[in-house]
């Protein structure tokens, strides 16, 4: 009998559900993320996206279903930077390295190198988080995650509070690391354009309890995703019935009729 070589996906969820007390937060969600691919979880607030991410990270055990993590190392970027206020930026970046037993000097060197690549100066790295701007704090949080050289990166709306210039810069950095290291990434976002820009597949999560409402593949290579394509595709995605259902938006035809009525009334 010939051996079948199967490479386990970095992340594979099968029929996952989780219950807090009597209430199900999510139910029956199956998804899988391949190496070097970004899957975006898109859906309204409170639909259980964060719960799914915590299950993926192994922070909570799902009530039902199966989680398989082929990834050796995962890293999580939280919604807020969640830096340790009593550590300098450099020490914050090195947190995961310290946990993995990297000696002090090597840790500092790696943290400095990564910080530099993410646009933090030597001076910034010596500062405590309180002295850093929100954007700088987000960079430190991202650097902390990338420092452990994860093969599975879990991102919980990490860019939600940032201005557009900073977002674009961090998107580029993130995409570069994902391509260079073949990282599998699961990204939560409310922002459809962000999902269209970064993801290889969008999974819609909605309803109560949250479940997968549909998936949209985005096959265009990332290098070819210019602004024109982004706007057109985002608009296209917005118009999809599955997307409108997920976010509880009226169907396009009713929306168009309402706009027409409003115009006539004026």
């Amino acid at each position, binding site marked *: 009998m010939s051996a079948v070589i199967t490479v386990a996906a970095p992340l594979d969820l099968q029929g996952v559900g989780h219950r807090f007390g009597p209430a199900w937060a999510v139910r029956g969600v199956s998804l899988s993320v391949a190496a070097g691919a970004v899957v975006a979880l898109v859906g309204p607030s409170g639909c259980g996206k964060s719960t799914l991410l915590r299950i993926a*990270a192994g*922070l909570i055990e799902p009530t039902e279903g199966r989680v398989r993590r082929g990834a050796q190392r995962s*890293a*999580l970027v*939280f919604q*807020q930077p*969640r830096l*340790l*206020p*009593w*550590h300098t930026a450099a020490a914050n970046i090195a*947190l*995961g390295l*310290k*946990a*993995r037993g990297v000696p002090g000097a090597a840790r500092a060197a790696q943290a400095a190198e990564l910080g530099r690549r993410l646009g933090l100066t030597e001076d910034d790295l010596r*500062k*405590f988080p*309180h*002295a850093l701007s929100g954007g700088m704090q987000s960079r430190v949080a991202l650097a*902390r995650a990338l420092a*452990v050289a994860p093969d599975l990166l879990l991102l919980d709306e990490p860019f939600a509070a940032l201005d557009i210039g900073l977002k674009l810069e961090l998107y580029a950095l993130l995409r570069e690391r994902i391509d260079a290291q073949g990282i599998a990434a699961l990204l939560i976002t409310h922002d459809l354009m962000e999902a269209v820009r970064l993801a290889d597949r969008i999974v819609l999560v909605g309803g109560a309890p949250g479940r997968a409402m549909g998936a949209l593949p985005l096959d265009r290579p990332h290098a070819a995703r210019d602004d024109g394509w982004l706007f057109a595709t985002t608009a296209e995605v917005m118009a999809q019935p599955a997307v409108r259902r997920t976010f509880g938006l009226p169907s396009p035809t009713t929306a168009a009729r309402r706009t027409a009525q409003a115009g006539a009334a004026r």
Partner: protein
Amino acid sequence: MQLLLSILRGLPAYLWTGWGAVASLALLCALWAALASLYGPLILPGPRETFATLHALWQSGQMGPELWVSAQRALAGLGLALAAGTVIGLLAGRFMTTAVIARPLLTLLLGMPPIAWLVLAMLWFGTGHATPVFTVFVAACPIVFAGALQGMRTLEQHYRELADAYALGLAQRMTDIVLPHVAAYLFPATVTALGTAWKVVVMAELLTTVDGVGAALASARTQLDTAGSLAWIGALLALLLLIEYGVLEPLKREVERWREAAA
């Protein structure tokens, strides 16, 4: 080493902030002198007379050893209280159930008068070294315990999740997350505990031992030596101030340097 250097660098600025303290102490001395001139030296000797007695006691070599003995007892009791109080406080604060169980016990222990412990300690340990050390320990321990418990209860879930997500081991959890957070609660508790230790050690010595500041106070009392009593009390308070502002406060400033930017 780096910590020490950093403390030394901050020293001039730190000393400059001491003017306010000096002024308030000078005011106290003026009030004391006024009262002394009103009541006469038998009831209340003035600051000048007291300091002269203090100086004489120090010069005669009588004061140093006694202060040293008392300080050793107070600091031994305090050290034990810090170690035990921190450990049980952190453990009790870790879980809701233990925290709930600990609360009424804490109220009880904090309310227990040190003199009651002293009576028990005399029965258990006799009149040796152990009685004042034990009394200081049991009086200071609940204070530290309460501080550590409070610190642990207020540790945010956020940080626990962070520690889980980055697979921090137990040792790193303690040094990088729990202790820096709990320190903010432990410092004020330690200052309070230090004051308590000082008060309790003198009380315990006064009633039990033949050496230490408390014993010296007892003998000054039997000789109706008011100036001597005040001199001993002055020496004791000076030592307390020295430890608090010479050791604890600079240490606190250094450990909590990260707060500066926030203010």
